[in-house]
Every structure is written in C-alpha cells, then in structure tokens.
C-alpha cells in the first residue's frame, strides 16, 4: 500500500512540475500575473509530493518490504536500521527518487527565498526548473521505477546492501553531491531566464550568485566526503582515483568554480556577460553529462549503476533537449550582446580571466582523459586507457602558474592596477612564503624531493598572500575591531576558500611525496617499524557482526618507546553478498595518518598487513572543508539580504550601479 502511495505521490509531483513548467512561463509571455503567482505554490507542492515519495520508499526499506524489487535487491533484515534507511539511495532507482526530491527542494527554495526577484523573472526561473523536474521525474517514473513490486512471488530475504556502502561517509556523500549537482540547475535556470528576457545587466548575476555559491559549497563537501570515504573504506589509503565517476563530479566543480569568479566580474563590472551565461549553462550541462555517464553505462567505473541502454537513451535525449536547446538559445540571443566595460591588461578582470583559463584547461584535461577512451573506441581506433600519470602530470603543471596567479589576484584592483604599489607587499609575502615553507620542511624533517618543495612554496605563497591581503584591507577600513567588522563577509569567504586551496595543495604535495608503506607478514607479538613508529600486533580474533563475520586485529603503536595509540583493523566477510571488505585502522593527526589494513591470511596463524604512514593527508580534506566554509561565509554577505528592503524604493537597474559604484 505505502509503495503505491509513494508512486502516486511521485506522479503528483510530475503533474505539478509539468504545471510549473507551463503556467508561469505562459504568464511571463502574456503578462498574466495570476499565472505567474501560481509558480510559488506549485513549486512548494511539487517538493512536498516528491518528499512524500521519498519517505514512502524509505519506509519500504525500513520495514523490509521485500515485495518491492528495489528493497529486495538492496537491503536485508539483518542490516542495521540506519543502513536500511541509507540503502534507499544505494541503488540507481532509489537515488533517482532522492535526486528528484532534492531538485524539487531547490525549486521550492527559489520560490521561497527570492522575494526580491521581479515576478516575471521568478516565473521564468521556476518554469525552467519545472521542466527540468519534468524530465527527471519522468525518468524516475517510467525508466527506473523504484516502487516496482514482484508480487506474488517475492523473496523472504533481501540481497543486502553493497558492503562498500555500509559506512557513515556513504550516508551523507550522495545527498551532498546531489545537492551540488542539482543546485547548479538553479544557476542554469537563472541564465536561461536571462536569455529569455534578453537582459544581461549585472542584476541576474547578483541574483544567481548566492545560489551558485550554495550549490558549489554542497558539491565541494560531497566530493570531499567521497574522497574521505574512499580513503577509509577501500582499504589501501588512496584518496583520489581519477575514476570516470569522480571525474564526472570534478568537471562541474571546476566549471562551477570558474562560474563563481566570473559572476563576480559580471556583477561588479558588467563585463564577461556572454561568457558568464555560457559558464552557467556549462556547469549544469556537465552535471547532467555526469549523471548520464554514471547511469547509462557508456563508461566503465567502480561506481556505475547497473545499466540498461534504454535508460541511457532517455537521458541522452533529455541532454539533447536541455543542453542543446539552451546552447541554441544562447547562440541566437548572444549574437547581439556586447560588453562595454573597459579594463587594462593588469587588472582584477584579467586576473579572473586567468582563473577561468586555468579552470577550463583543467576541465578540458579531465574531459578528454575521461571521454577519450570512449571516442577512441567509437572511432574504431581500438581501446586505450588514460590513467593517473596523465592526470597527475597535467594537474601538476597547471597548479604552478595557477597558484602564482591566485596569490597575486586578490591584490589587484578592478579596471586598472599599477605595478609599483604592489611590489613592497609582494616582496614581503615572498619572504613570508620562504620562511613558512622552510619552516614546514624543517618541522617535518623532510629534505629531498622537489615536488614537495614546490607544493609547499605554492601553498605558502597562496596562504600568505591571502592572509596579507585580508590584513591590508582591514587596516584600510580602520583600526582594530572596526576594520575587522567592516570587511564584507564575502571577502572573508573568499580568503578562507583561498587558504583552503593552499592547505589542500600542501596536503597533496606532502602526501604524494612522503607517504611510506610496507607490506608485512605478522604474527601475534611481531613488531614492524615504519617512519619511526613501531607497530606491534597484540591480538587476532574472529569477528561476529549482524550481517558479517571475519577477522580482527589489535595493534599497539609506539614511538621511541612512548605509547601513541591502539589500532583496530578488520577484515569483514559479508555473508549475504559474499564479499570481503577491509576496514582499515586509522589514527589521524594533523601532521600524519597511521593507516593499517589487514591483507590475507597466511599459513601459520599469520596475516599480511599493509602498514602506511601518510603525512599531511588530512590537509587535503581540511582544505576542501575550508573552501566549503568560505563559500558558506560568503553566503552571509549582507549584500544578498539588504537588497530586499532597498529594492522596494529603487528600480532594479539603477540599484546595481548604486550598490557597487
């Protein structure tokens, strides 16, 4: 009964989305205010019904309703209750319901929190969101029904959830990632609405900015959590794999980052107009492409869902309509638009343009690396594979000029900057950079290796420059607390995100250079030494979990005879899915991780162990976290809220100029 209600709710959400796609858009062309006003209630109702559908599916999982095929193949009675709930989005079908719900939630959020938008604009945006909703809900309903029953013959026990997904990281990784992917639909809808209206003044950019920042923040967190999850759950200590699905999430992130930066240019300076619109379209298009790559089976990946060409075909047609249609609209509308603002070669505009060049080059590298094998095969040139060395090398060379530019960028003024005034602060930052880099080198007792040194220098350069710049701005605004308070939230946000980048670069450079690992055979009582740490195997014993059995090992870590920590590593055997999982033991500190995983049983009561010491690996995720915090901080900028009251008095166009004159 409940699953049928869920399906019914999803069908209602479909109809409501369809109405949302038709009525406000109709209103925007006929000037029918009542049609435009309907946008908000329709968006909210659609989100409510999609939420009901998701709740119904979760309920089916929670109550082990194995008559529902999706539940039977992705859950079991012995699964702990919280994993039963997260199994809801462990499959393609279930995750589509979540995806749809999140999409309708974003739509409702736009309807609720965009009071300052002109009704006409709001109607267009909601209309576009409505059509995107129609596409995805139709995909969920007709191509991948999560509520399908297998009556009258249903299994008494389910197939269990893939053990890889039985982890805390997995509970929040997909929802966050979807929040990011789908959130870019909002920027996309803003851009389409701007295209439809034919007005590209800076207002649309200012309205789109907080939404883009929010989506970007979620995507950053989602990717970061995915990396952290892979690190601890796959059992060999890698944190990024250049897997096609990771790349699929990385591409919208890169273009989204470029978009955040050009939105600033378009908002404040009124230039880069057509470019910003194109980036807004591209960011969501790459999110859609990612969804297509993961769910259609054109690429081989550890993440892909089970595949079916008809699903892929549906998504491809959807892609053609959404991306192709929007790019066509773009080409037709943009031919007549001109950016007028002038700027010199050395100016903030050019710096941000440089950011875009690097972001897009990086995107191109990822895009080609991911899709070239497919192109190659389809052209009949045989199969090739592009792996880590290609990406690593390309990103290494891209990071160097990018970081140098990033250190300089925030110091440079809009329109025109003279060289001379920047020389003293830059020289001071360069000195600070050297001190910090050498200090870190000394503190970690690392000597050789150019890559690490370059990474430290670049990271320190970006970090010092960001700190120096924020310090200088504060001083400009006034003494002490007054200056600190006066600086805008979005400035602090930017600085935090840039420092996050610096921290991440340092983390990556140090981890890749100085990680050490050993594969050893150990019996109880054996000790192995690595990087000055002594790992002693204390005990080996059998495990008995709810849906798994296996073996566990307790270890003790000492350094120079001083006790550091106890470690507990497991090798689990999930009985229903008959798969083996490695639960690594990790002891995390800011300066290093100790990472021990169980390998195979060896003759004579011994096991093989992989023991690793990974310096600075936490900095990678800390950097990502700082970026997300930076984006959140920027969201609290007064600019995004003060407008509500002011725009009642001032007509939209003048206001933009007043605000940033």
């Amino acid at each position: 009964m409940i699953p049928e209600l869920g399906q019914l709710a999803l069908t209602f959400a479909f109809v409501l989305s369809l109405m949302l796609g038709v009525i406000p858009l109709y209103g925007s062309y006929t000037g029918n205010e009542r049609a435009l006003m309907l946008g908000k209630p329709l968006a909210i109702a659609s989100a409510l019904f999609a939420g009901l559908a998701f709740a119904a599916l979760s309920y089916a999982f929670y109550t082990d309703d194995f008559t529902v095929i999706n539940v039977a193949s992705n859950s079991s009675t012995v699964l702990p209750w919280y994993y039963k709930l997260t199994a809801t989005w462990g499959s393609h079908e279930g995750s589509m319901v979540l995806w749809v719900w999140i999409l309708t939630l974003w739509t409702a959020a736009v309807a609720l929190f965009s009071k300052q938008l002109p009704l006409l604009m709001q109607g267009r945006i909601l209309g576009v969101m409505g059509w995107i909703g129609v596409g995805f809900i139709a995909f969920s309903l007709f191509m991948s029904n999560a509520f399908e029953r297998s009556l009258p013959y249903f299994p008494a026990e389910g197939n269990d959830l893939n053990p890889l997904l039985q982890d805390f990281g997995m509970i929040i990784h997909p929802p966050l990632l979807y929040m990011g992917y789908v959130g870019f639909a909002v920027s996309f809808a803003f851009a389409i609405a701007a295209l439809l209206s034919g007005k590209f003044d800076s207002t649309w950019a200012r309205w789109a900015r907080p939404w883009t920042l929010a989506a970007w923040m979620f995507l950053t967190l989602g990717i970061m959590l995915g990396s952290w999850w892979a690190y601890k759950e796959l059992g060999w200590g890698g944190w990024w794999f250049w897997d096609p699905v990771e790349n699929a999430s990385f591409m919208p992130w890169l273009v989204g980052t470029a978009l955040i930066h050009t939105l600033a240019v378009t908002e404040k300076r009124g230039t880069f107009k057509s470019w910003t619109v194109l980036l807004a379209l591209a960011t969501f298009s790459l999110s859609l492409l990612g969804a297509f790559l993961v769910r259609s089976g054109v690429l081989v990946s550890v993440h892909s869902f089970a595949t079916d060409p008809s699903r892929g075909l549906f998504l491809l047609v959807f892609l053609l309509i959404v991306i192709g249609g929007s790019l066509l609209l773009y080409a037709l509308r943009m031919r007549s638009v001109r950016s007028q603002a002038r700027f010199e070669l050395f100016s903030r505009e050019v710096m941000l343009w440089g950011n875009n060049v690097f972001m897009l080059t990086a995107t191109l590298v990822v895009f080609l690396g991911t899709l070239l094998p497919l192109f190659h095969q389809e052209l009949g040139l045989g199969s090739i594979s592009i792996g880590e060395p290609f990406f690593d090398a390309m990103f290494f060379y891209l990071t160097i000029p990018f970081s140098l530019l990033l250190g300089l960028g925030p110091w440079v003024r809009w329109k025109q900057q003279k060289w001379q005034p920047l020389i003293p602060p830059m020289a001071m930052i360069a000195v600070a950079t050297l001190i910090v880099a050498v200090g870190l080198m000394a503190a970690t007792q690392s000597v050789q290796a150019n890559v690490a040194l370059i990474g430290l220098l670049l990271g320190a350069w970006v970090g010092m420059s960001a700190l120096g710049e924020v310090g200088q701005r504060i001083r400009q605004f006034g003494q002490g607390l007054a200056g600190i308070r006066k600086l805008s939230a979005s400035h602090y946000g930017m600085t935090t995100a840039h420092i996050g980048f610096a921290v991440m670069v340092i983390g990556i450079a140090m981890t890749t250079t100085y990680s050490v690992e050993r594969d050893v055979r150990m019996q109880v009582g054996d000790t192995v030494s690595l990087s000055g740490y002594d790992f002693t195997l204390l005990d080996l014993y059998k495990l008995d979990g709810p849906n798994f059995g296996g073996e566990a090992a307790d270890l003790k870590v000492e350094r120079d005879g001083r006790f550091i920590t106890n470690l507990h590593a497991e090798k689990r055997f999930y009985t229903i899915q008959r798969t083996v999982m490695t639960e690594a033991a990790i002891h995390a500190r800011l300066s290093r991780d100790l990472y021990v995983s169980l390998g195979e049983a060896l003759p004579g009561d011994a096991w093989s162990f992989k023991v690793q010491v990974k310096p600075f690996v936490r900095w990678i995720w800390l950097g990502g976290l700082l970026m997300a915090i930076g984006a959140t901080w920027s969201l609290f900028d007064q600019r995004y809220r003060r407008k509500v009251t002011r725009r009642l008095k001032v007509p939209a166009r003048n206001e933009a100029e007043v605000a940033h004159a």
Partner: protein
Amino acid sequence: MRKWLFFAPLAIFLAVSVFLYTGLFSDPWSRDSALLNRPMPEFDLPDLMQPQQRWNRELLTGEPFLLSVWGVWCPTCKAQLRFMTELREQGIPIIGLYYPLPVDPAFGDHFSLGQLQRDVQRELAYFGDPYQFNILDENRRLSFDLGVSGSPETFLVDADGTIRMHHVGDMNPRVWRNLFATAFEELQQAALVYQEVKP
C-alpha cells in the same frame, strides 16, 4: 564571423553527443584482447571430472573450437548453457575452462574437488551440457594469461591453437550470429583445406 562563434558550444556539444549515442550501444567492457591472433598460452591442467587426465595446448589443436570460461558461481554462465548446448548439437566443439572461486581458508572455506564435481554435474544436468570436457584452471593461471576479467568469456581458437576472437559477456544467438558464426565457418573451411594439403 564573430557572431558565429556563439554557435561553437552547440556544435561541440552535438559532436560529443554523437559519440555518447554510439557509445550507448557498444559494450564498454569489450576490449581487444592483447592475445588476439597470438597462440594460446602454454598450460598443463587437469580435467575437471577426471583429474588424472591432463590437458595441454597441443592436445587441443587440430580443429577450431570455442573455449568458454565459466563457473557454477556465475549466474550469467548458467543462463548461456542452454544456447551453448544448442551450438554443441549443431556440431560446434566447445571446451570449458572452469574458473574456481578463490578459496579463503580464513573464513573456513576449503576446496573440495568432489563437491565441485557434484555441483557442476547437477548444474549441467539441469541446464544442458555444452562442453566436450572441462579443464580445471586450478590456480586461475591460464585465465590470467588469457586476460580473463570476468565470467563468462568466450574465445574462438583456430586449428593451429591461435586465438581469433575474444568475447566478454554471455553467449547468445545475437552474439553468435553477429560475431562468431561467420568467423567460425571460415576457420572450419581453412582447417579442412589445411588438412587436405597436409600429406
């Protein structure tokens, strides 16, 4: 001129979607085996049912045949047994290469040939037996040398013991018709000619 530049994103996207479209209908797992047109690797392995009988490469040559890598633990292998039995009835020689699952003594599993033979017999009796005989790939070494990445996989080997075709995935009428049928007939013809010429 500059105005047409705005159509560039659309053009690029359309070009990419052509590849995405064709990619939908081709199997991403299919990849050209590195062993194609190379001789089958050397091996010396026991028969699954009569372990005292041992097989090697020379014993298999003489006529083209299909080498099918499979196991009772693999549901798709089960599904293809019926069609492959039809092939056998048409006179296509099919030799099985049995891929046993790795045994992990840590979990109390231990390898029992008798149990495996009973499982195989039950399955073949139930779904159909396409195999002339089965070679037991004890250490999965031959599968490794053949570049097997999953089950089922099917190789077409010619009369000289050269690998002519490698298919990953199940054998069904469509795969047989589109990929194997013609190639197999040609190899059969070639083998006949070869035998006639041979003194």
